[in-house]
C-alpha cells in the first residue's frame, strides 16, 4: 500500500515539467563540477611535489561534487517537497487518500518514499558519473558509496522536514520558504558555534553529520542522527494530518 502511494507521487512528479526541469538542471550543474574537478586535479597535482600533498582523484573530484550536491539539494528539496501535501490540501484531494483503505502513516510514508525515490535518481546518476573515472584511474569505490549513503540520508532528512512543512499550510510557496529557512538554519548551525565546536546545538547541524560521510567514513552515530531526524518529522506529519481528521 505504501508502494502505491509512492508510485502515485512519483508519477505526479514526472507528470509536470517541474520534476524534469529540476532533474536536468541539477545534473547539468553536477556534470559541470565533475568536469572542472577533473581539470583542476591535474592543475593542482602537477604543482604538488611532496607525497603528503597528493590526494587521490576520487577524493579530490568526489569531495568537490558531493560538497556541491549537498549544497544544491538545499534548494531542490523545498521546491519538490512543497507540493506533497499543501497542494492536495488546496485542491481538496486529501479525502481521496483519507477514504481509501490506507492508514495515515502509510500515506505519509508513501509520499516520503516517493520523493526520496525521485531524489535518489540524482544520487545514482552522480555515482555513475564518478564511476566513469575508473576507466583511466583506479578509484576508491568505498569513498563514493559512503558519500552516496550520506547524501541519501541527508536528502531523506530534508524531504521529511519538507513534508512536515507542506502538511502545515495550504500554500505550496509558503511551505517551500519555511522548509528552505529551516534547512538553511540547520545546515549552518555549526558555523554560529565555530568558537565552541562541542556545543550541543552545533551537534544538531546537518552538515556536521554529513562531514564524516564526505570523508568516506560511515559512522553509526551519524546514521542514527539522520534516522531520528527523519522519524521525528514523519511522526509530526502524521500527527498534523490526524489533527485534520479530529478537529476538521
Amino acid at each position, binding site marked *: *500500500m505504501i508502494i*502505491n*502511494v509512492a*508510485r*502515485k507521487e512519483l*508519477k*505526479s512528479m514526472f*507528470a*509536470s515539467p517541474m520534476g524534469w526541469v529540476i532533474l536536468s538542471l541539477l545534473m547539468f550543474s553536477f556534470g559541470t563540477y565533475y568536469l572542472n574537478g577533473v581539470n583542476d586535479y591535474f592543475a593542482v597535482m602537477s604543482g604538488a611535489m611532496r607525497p603528503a600533498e597528493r590526494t587521490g582523484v576520487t577524493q579530490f573530484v568526489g569531495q568537490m561534487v558531493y560538497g556541491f550536491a549537498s549544497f544544491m539539494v538545499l534548494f531542490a528539496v523545498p521546491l519538490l517537497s512543497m507540493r506533497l501535501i499543501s497542494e492536495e490540501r488546496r*485542491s*481538496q*484531494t*486529501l*479525502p*481521496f*487518500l*483519507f*477514504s*481509501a*483503505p*490506507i*492508514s495515515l502513516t502509510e500515506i505519509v510514508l508513501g509520499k516520503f518514499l516517493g520523493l526520496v525515490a525521485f531524489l535518489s535518481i540524482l544520487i545514482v546518476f552522480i555515482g555513475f558519473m564518478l564511476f566513469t573515472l575508473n576507466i583511466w584511474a583506479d578509484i576508491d569505490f568505498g569513498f563514493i558509496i559512503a558519500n552516496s549513503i550520506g547524501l541519501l540520508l541527508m536528502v531523506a532528512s530534508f524531504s521529511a522536514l519538507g513534508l512536515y512543512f507542506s502538511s502545515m499550510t495550504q500554500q505550496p510557496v509558503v511551505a517551500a520558504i519555511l522548509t528552505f529557512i529551516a534547512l538553511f538554519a540547520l545546515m549552518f548551525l555549526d558555523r554560529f558555534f565555530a568558537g565552541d565546536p562541542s556545543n550541543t546545538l552545533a551537534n544538531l547541524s546537518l552538515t556536521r553529520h554529513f562531514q564524516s560521510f564526505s570523508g568516506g567514513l560511515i559512522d553509526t552515530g551519524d546514521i542514527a542522527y539522520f534516522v531520528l531526524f527523519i522519524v521525528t518529522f514523519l511522526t509530526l506529519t502524521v500527527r498534523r494530518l490526524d489533527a485534520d*481528521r*479530529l478537529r*476538521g
Partner: protein
Amino acid sequence: MNDFTVEATQLTRLYGGREAVSNVSFTLSKGEVLGFLGPNGAGKSTTMKMLTGNLAPSNGSVKICGIDMIEQPKEAKALIGYLPEMRPLYKEFTVDEYLTIAARLHRVSASHIKKAVEVAKERCGLGHMSKRLIENLSNGYQQRVGIAQAIIHNPMVVILDEPTVGLDPIQIRDIRALIREVGAERSVIISTHILPEVEMVCDHVQIIDKGKLVFNGSIDVLKKQRIGNKLLIGMHNPPSSDALLKIAGVTEVEVVSSGLMRVRFADDAAPAEAIVQAAVKSGWGLHQIAPDQTSLEDVFVQLTYQEQAVV
C-alpha cells in the same frame, strides 16, 4: 447479527462547542438508496465525512457492514466508495491513470485493475475519454470521473455528496439510472438539494436541519404527506362552508380565495363524486376539481420550520 450495511449511532460532531451534527442515528440495509436532504449548512456533508472516516465524530459510532469505523478503519474504508462535494481529482493525470491509481489504492487485485477501470468507465460513460487529461475535461465529465472513482472497487456502500451538481439533464438522467442500478445490489447514500431527485431515486429519505434529524422514513411517507387528503374546488357560486361539511367524509373546509376552496377529507373517504353531485344539484357552478398537491418543497419547509418552532 443483522445485515445492515451502514449503522450510525448517535453521531455528534462539535465544532468549537457548536454542534454541527447532533445525535444522528440511522441504519441502512442492502439494496436501499438513502437520500440526505437539508438546507445549506445543515450538516449533510459533515455527516458524510464522519461516515467515510474523513472526520472523527465527537461522539457516537459508525459501523459499515458491522465493522467499526474507529476501531478498524482500514477494513471499514475498504467497503466504502466516497465522492466528496469537492471532487478529489488529480488534474495532471489522464482518466485511465487516475482510475488505475484509485483501483490500486482501494485494494483491487493487480490482475483485475484493467477490467475494473474499463467497467467503471463504461458505467459512467467515459469510454472515449480514457486518454484525456482530467484537467481538460468539462465539469460534467469531471463529475463522472469522480463517480467512477467511487464505484471502481465495487464497494458495499457508495456515498455521493451532491452527485448531480453541474451536469446537463441527459447526464443527470444517466447518473440517476446508475445510482438506482448500484442501489439495487449495494447501498447508496446521496445528498442533494434537488427534491424531485430524491423522489425519483431514493427509497429512504432523511431530512437534516441544524444538525438534527427532523425526518427519517421511507419515501412513501413523504409522498403521502405531499399528496395529502385534499381537494381544490373552484366554483362560480360558492356555497357556505357548512354546506360542504355536510357531505360525507369532508372534515375541513378552507376558503382560498373567492370561488376557490380547499377541502380536507378523512383518510378512507373519497368525497369527490359526492361533491360533484351536490354541486350539480344545487347549481354551485363547479368548473374545477383536483387533488391538491403540496410540493415537496412545502413539505420540506414545513418539516424544517416545525423544528424551529419547537426550539
